[in-house]
C-alpha cells in the first residue's frame, strides 16, 4: 500500500475513561497511519481497546490527548456539525447488531444517510435502487428490518454504509451475529468492495480467521499496538 495517499493518521492518541475517582486508560499513545485502499483488521482480546480505537477512527468520539487526521483534517478541532457531515461522507459504519432503524423499510434505511447529506430525491432513489441490487435484496426493499433474516439485515446495513459512497468502510465484528456460511458471504462482499470498488476497509474483530481477509493486521494489547503486520 506504500505510495497510495494517506487517509487516516492517529498521532499519539490517548483515551482515558474516568471511572469514579480512578482513571482507566483505554488507549495509550497509539500512532498509526492507514492508507487509501487498505484492508485493515484491528484485532485483540476484549479490553484491549479495539472498540475505543474504532470509535475514534469513526469520529464517534474524541481522544483525551493526541490528534486524529482524517483526510488531512484534524477532527479534534472541528465543529460538531462539520464533523457529522465529514463522518457521513467519509465513513460507512457496519455494526455487529446491524443497527437498522426499525420503524422504516430496508429501502428507506439505505436512503437515510443520503437524506442527512441532502442528496436530491432522484439521485438518492437511483442510488438506493442500485445498492439494493448490489447487496442482492432488490425484492426486499419494502420490508421492515424485523421482517428480514440476520444475514439480510447485515446486507441492508452494508448497503447503508455504501449509500453516501464513503472512502472508508468501518466494520465492528460484522459477522459476530451470523452463522458461518452467512458470515463467509458477508466477508466475500467486503473483499469485493475492497478489490473492485477500491474502498478502504477497517474491520474490528477478535476472530483471527476473519483477519486473514485483511491486508494489514493491527494487534492491540492493553491499549497499545503490539504488532502491525502488512506483509500479507
Amino acid at each position, binding site marked *: 500500500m506504500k505510495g497510495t495517499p494517506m487517509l487516516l493518521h492517529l498521532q499519539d492518541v490517548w483515551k482515558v475513561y474516568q471511572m469514579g475517582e480512578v482513571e482507566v486508560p483505554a488507549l495509550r499513545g497509539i500512532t498509526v497511519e492507514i492508507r487509501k485502499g487498505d484492508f485493515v483488521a484491528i484485532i485483540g482480546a476484549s479490553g484491549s481497546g479495539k472498540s475505543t480505537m474504532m*470509535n475514534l477512527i*469513526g469520529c*464517534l*468520539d474524541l481522544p483525551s490527548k493526541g490528534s486524529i487526521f482524517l483526510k488531512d483534517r484534524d477532527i479534534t478541532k472541528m465543529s*460538531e*456539525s462539520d464533523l*457529522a*457531515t465529514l*463522518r*457521513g*461522507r467519509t465513513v*460507512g*459504519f457496519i*455494526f455487529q447488531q446491524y*443497527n*437498522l*432503524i*426499525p*420503524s*422504516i423499510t430496508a429501502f428507506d434505511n439505505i436512503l*437515510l*444517510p443520503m*437524506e*442527512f*447529506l*441532502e442528496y436530491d430525491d432522484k439521485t438518492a432513489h437511483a442510488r438506493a435502487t442500485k445498492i439494493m441490487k448490489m447487496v442482492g435484496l432488490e425484492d426486499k426493499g419494502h420490508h421492515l428490518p424485523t421482517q428480514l433474516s440476520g444475514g439480510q439485515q447485515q446486507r441492508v446495513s452494508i448497503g*447503508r454504509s455504501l*449509500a*453516501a459512497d464513503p472512502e472508508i468502510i468501518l466494520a465492528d465484528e460484522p459477522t459476530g451475529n451470523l452463522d458461518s456460511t452467512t458470515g463467509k458471504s458477508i466477508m466475500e462482499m467486503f473483499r469485493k468492495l475492497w478489490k473492485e470498488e477500491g474502498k478502504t476497509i477497517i474491520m474490528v474483530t477478535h476472530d483471527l480467521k476473519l483477519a486473514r481477509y485483511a491486508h494489514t493486521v493491527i494487534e492491540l494489547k492493553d491499549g497499545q499496538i503490539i504488532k502491525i503486520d502488512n506483509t500479507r
Partner: protein
Amino acid sequence: MKFRKAFKHALNMVLHAKIRSWLTILGIVIGVAAVISIVSLGEALQQDVSSQLGNLGGDILTLTAGRPRAMDFGHGRDYGGDASASEEEIVIDRTDLQALKGISDIMLIDTQIRGNAEIYYVAEKGSVTVNGVDPATWYQITTSEIAEGRMLGPADSNVIVVGGRIADGFFDKQLGVNQLVTIEERLFRIVGILDDTSNSVYMPIDIAYEILEDKEKGVYDSIVIKVKDEEQLDQAIANIEQKLMITRHATESTKDFTISSNKERQEQRAEMMSSMTTFLTAIAAVALLVGAVGIANTMFTSVLEKTKEIGIMKAIGARNNDILTIFLLNAGFIGFFGGLLGVILGIILSGFLPMLMGASGGMISRMGSAGSAMGLTTILLALGISVFIGMASGAVPAYQASRLKPVDALRYE
C-alpha cells in the same frame, strides 16, 4: 437534512408510536376538547344574548314601581314590617303616564297590566298569563313576531292574541285564528298567534281590567317606553327619571320607581356569561397544562427509548440540528394530532353540553348548531396552540437528544 425529510421522519415516529404516545395525545385531546367546547359554548351563549338584544330592541325601556334592585342591596334594612305596607302605595298610575307624555325623547308608550286567569276551550280549561296592553301602541313596541293572523289594533275590544304554546299543545285540539275561547266567563276571538312558545294571552288593557278583578283601573304594572333615538338612550333615561322624580316628589335616596332598559339587562347577562366562560376556560386550561406535562414526559421517555437510534443516525451523518428538528417536529405532531382530535371532540361536546346542563328547548336547538357556528379562527387557534404546547414541552427533551454523544448513544441498550 432537508426540513421536508425531517418532517417525514417525525411523522413516521408518531405513526409508529407506542400506545403510551397515544395516551399522551389523549391528554391533549381532553384538554383541547374542554377548552373548545367551553369557549364555543360561551360564544354561542353570547351570540344568544346579543341576538336577544337585537330582537328585544335596545330602544325599549320599562318603568315599574318600587326601588331599583341595586338600591335594595344598599339599603337592605329598609325591608321590614312596614315595608310591605308602604309598598302597596307605590304604584305607577295615570299621573306618571301624563308626565311621560310630555317628554320629547319618548316615541311610544304602552301601559301594561298582568295577571293569571282561567281559560276555557270546549270542555278543557287551564291557567294563562293575561297581559293587558295598549292596543294602539303594543304592536309597535313589542318584539314578539306574529306567526298567524294579526296583532291587536287600536279599535279592538273582545279579541286576543295568544302565545304559540296556547295555540299548539295547550289544549287537546289545536287552536287557530278566529276561534273562540272563554276567559273568566267572557268570550274572546283569537285574531293572532305569536311566533313564540309562551302561555301568554294579550288583550286590550281596558278589557283586561275587567278580567283581572284585583287590578285598579288607572294603575299599571308597568309602562313600556320606546325612545326616539337609541343612541341617546342614557340621556332619555336621565330625562325620564328627572321628570318622574319631580312629579312623584322623590329624591335620589327615596326614589320609588325603576327604569330598566333591555340593553342594560342584556349587558349584565352578557357580562355574567363572559366571566363564567372565563372561569370555565381557566379550568380547561389547567387540563391542557396537564396534557402538556404529559407530552414532556412522553418525549423524555421517547428520547431514552430512541437513544440508540439517535446514535445510529449520528453515525451515518446526522447533525445535532437534524436530531433536534426531528424530535421537535415529533412533539409538534403529538400536539397537532391531540389538537385535531380535541377540536373534533370539542365540537361534538359543545352540541351535547347544553343538554347536560338542562337548557331549555330553544337553547338546545341553538346550541346544537354551535359546532358549525364555531369560527374557523377558533379551530385554527386551538390547533396552533396545541402544536405550540407540543413543541414547547418537547423542546428540552429534543435538545437533550440532539446533544447526545454518538458513542454513548450507540452503546445504550
